[in-house]
């Protein structure tokens, strides 16, 4: 907590002290969702302030602070220091360094990359905007052997899991375990959750090279699952009834990765991007049942193509969705399309993901309108098909109408 307060103060000082000396930018974003399942409107207002200060040609600092108000969250007002770090480019010959609160992006895929494991993600998955990751204390050191080959090392002094609001987490696990105990004739009236978060360092290395027609990198990640897994479950009698004591833990995992992007062989005008992850999990049992045991693969492979009439298409194959691990991984096909019109500020877009296992589906159709260079509005409709237990049907809460207005300054 003290660490966060320090970071916030540091960022505010950075913004206020040097507002005229560096490069300041920001955006104010309103997001509204009308949930069709809950028939409820929720609103979020985000103020994102970014400041870059160059001390010399080689050394700079960047701060990115988000002030967020949400009427759907259990914490309506939050201040998130997304990134705050010192960077040095070539201060040591052929070495670039960043240290502080960082966002690290691994993988060639735009979304759902199984190689992107350093930063926690927000609890809700968005199908209308780019996921906003949270920064973590880390060091990023890259050594360039030459212009085309590099070795990157990321070190986090301690693991940071994805954050889930306490009330939301309690509701989720209550709904998950209550039926199981009801079947045994036990009525659970409350839940007490404890997190056993590893304090060990997390690290990864990546060796990348640019070839004539494509770029490729191999990587190794040594860390933990960002989402919690039940570790211990105990029913405890309390004066108000039976309480569930739930211990959550974060299994260790090693990820061997391959990422690539470049010419799509045989398809003129298409760019191929792909991420393959071979994941070796820590064996994890709950109530004698294996939740994680054997090594498994996750992959995202896609191709970008723009037609002669300016229709952008991205077709992807996904093996293992964000919430799937181990033997739960299953295949999906995604399609992202966007049409740019000549002399029009209007840009319609579509995102569809279908589970090849049970045919459940998510569709997002929308359009954005650029009123000016710095102000745009996007309206989207997200629908989910498939029953509640299906792969994508369980994301029913994402169904609804979305309105987003963004002003950049």
């Amino acid at each position, binding site marked *: 907590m003290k660490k966060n307060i320090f970071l916030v103060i540091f960022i505010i000082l950075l913004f206020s002290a040097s507002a005229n000396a560096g*490069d300041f*930018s920001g*955006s104010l974003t309103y997001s509204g969702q009308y949930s069709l399942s809950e028939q409820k409107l929720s609103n979020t207002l985000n103020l994102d302030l970014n400041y*870059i200060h*160059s001390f010399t040609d080689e050394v*700079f600092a*960047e701060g990115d602070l988000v002030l967020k108000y949400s009427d759907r969250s259990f914490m309506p007002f939050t201040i998130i220091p997304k990134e705050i770090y010192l*960077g040095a*480019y*070539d201060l040591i010959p*052929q070495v*670039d360094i960043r240290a502080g609160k960082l*966002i690290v*992006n691994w*993988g*060639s895929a*735009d979304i759902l990359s199984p190689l992107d494991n350093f930063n926690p993600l927000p609890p809700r998955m968005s199908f209308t905007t*780019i996921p906003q990751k949270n920064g973590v204390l880390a060091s990023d050191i*890259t050594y*360039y052997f*030459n*212009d*085309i080959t*590099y070795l990157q090392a990321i070190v986090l002094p301690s693991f940071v899991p994805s954050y889930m609001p306490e009330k939301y987490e309690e509701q989720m696990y209550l709904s998950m375990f209550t039926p199981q105990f009801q079947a045994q004739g036990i009525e659970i009236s409350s839940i007490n959750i404890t997190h056993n978060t590893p304090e060990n360092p997390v690290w990864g290395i990546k060796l990348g090279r*640019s070839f*004539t*027609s*494509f*770029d490729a990198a191999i990587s190794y990640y040594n860390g933990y699952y960002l989402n919690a897994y039940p570790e211990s479950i105990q029913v405890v009698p309390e004066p108000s009834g039976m309480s569930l004591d739930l211990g959550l833990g974060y299994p260790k995992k090693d990820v061997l990765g391959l990422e690539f*992007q*470049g*010419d*799509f062989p045989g*398809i*003129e*005008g*298409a*760019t*191929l*991007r792909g991420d393959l992850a071979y994941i070796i999990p820590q064996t994890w049992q709950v109530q004698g049942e294996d939740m994680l045991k054997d090594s498994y693969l996750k992959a995202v492979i896609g191709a*970008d193509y*723009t037609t002669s009439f*300016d229709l952008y298409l991205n077709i992807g194959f996904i093996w293992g969705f964000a919430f799937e691990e181990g033997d739960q991984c299953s295949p999906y096909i995604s399609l992202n399309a966007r049409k*740019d019109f*000549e*002399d029009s500020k209007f840009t319609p877009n579509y995102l569809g993901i279908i589970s090849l296992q049970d045919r459940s589906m998510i569709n997002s159709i929308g359009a954005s309108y*650029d009123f000016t*260079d*710095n102000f*745009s509005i996007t309206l989207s409709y997200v629908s989910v098909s498939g029953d509640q237990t299906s792969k994508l049907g369980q994301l029913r809460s994402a169904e609804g109408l979305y309105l987003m207005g963004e002003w*950049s*300054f």
Partner: protein
Amino acid sequence: MKLRFKIFIFTIFVLLLSINVIVSAITVDEIMDKMEEKAPDFTTQKTISEMILIDQKGKEEVREMIMFSRKGEDEKTSTLMRFLSPKSVKGVTLLNIDDGEKIYLYMPAYDKPRRIAGSSKQEEFMGTGLSYEDMSMDYKDKDYEKKLLEETDSEYIVKIMPSGEDVSYKKIILHIDKEKFYAKKVEFYNTNENLTKTLEINKIRIDENGKITPLEIEFTDIEKNKKTKIVIKEIEYNIELSSGFFSIRTLKKPTL
């Protein structure tokens, strides 16, 4: 960007060893040589310019950008261009290496370099009306044939016929100022020999050595009825750039 494009085209022509057709007292090679003499002599360059996009109705959008370029020992040019404004595209950076052999696009929202497939080079870049190929100056200089078509009181008209597997244009016509030896206008004809694009130099600067720097370049897409005007605000030659400047390493750097 257009400045480099023009210079590149002119430079490669000088290097050609193809047919010379003499229709005048001056040969086409001599015209090219003179143009080469008039072009600024540099290996690296930095420009800050405004890109003005003009739609069919004449409505303008202004984007400010900074661009660095370097001509390698093999005469191949690498460029790095970053938008400075408006805020909606600020930080978007395009890197092309060795005449577009490799092209990368960096978008701050994704915070990672996206490689653009070589075969995607003819797609439009960020609504500018220019293709990745136009931005990268990816016009191979092998086996281009050139011919002096006409000589008027004020200009030489030269035809260039690109050849090779990957050419976008059947022919390119240059209108060269007879007095100052720079191309006032360039016409691009597609493979069906239809005029598709033109490039005009509206304003130039001549330094004390007689070297010519274009300051205002107008690019017209005839098929789409759109114009892109580039106004050079600052230009520096032979600046010091590190050996690894034109690499993905620089793309992610927040300050240039």
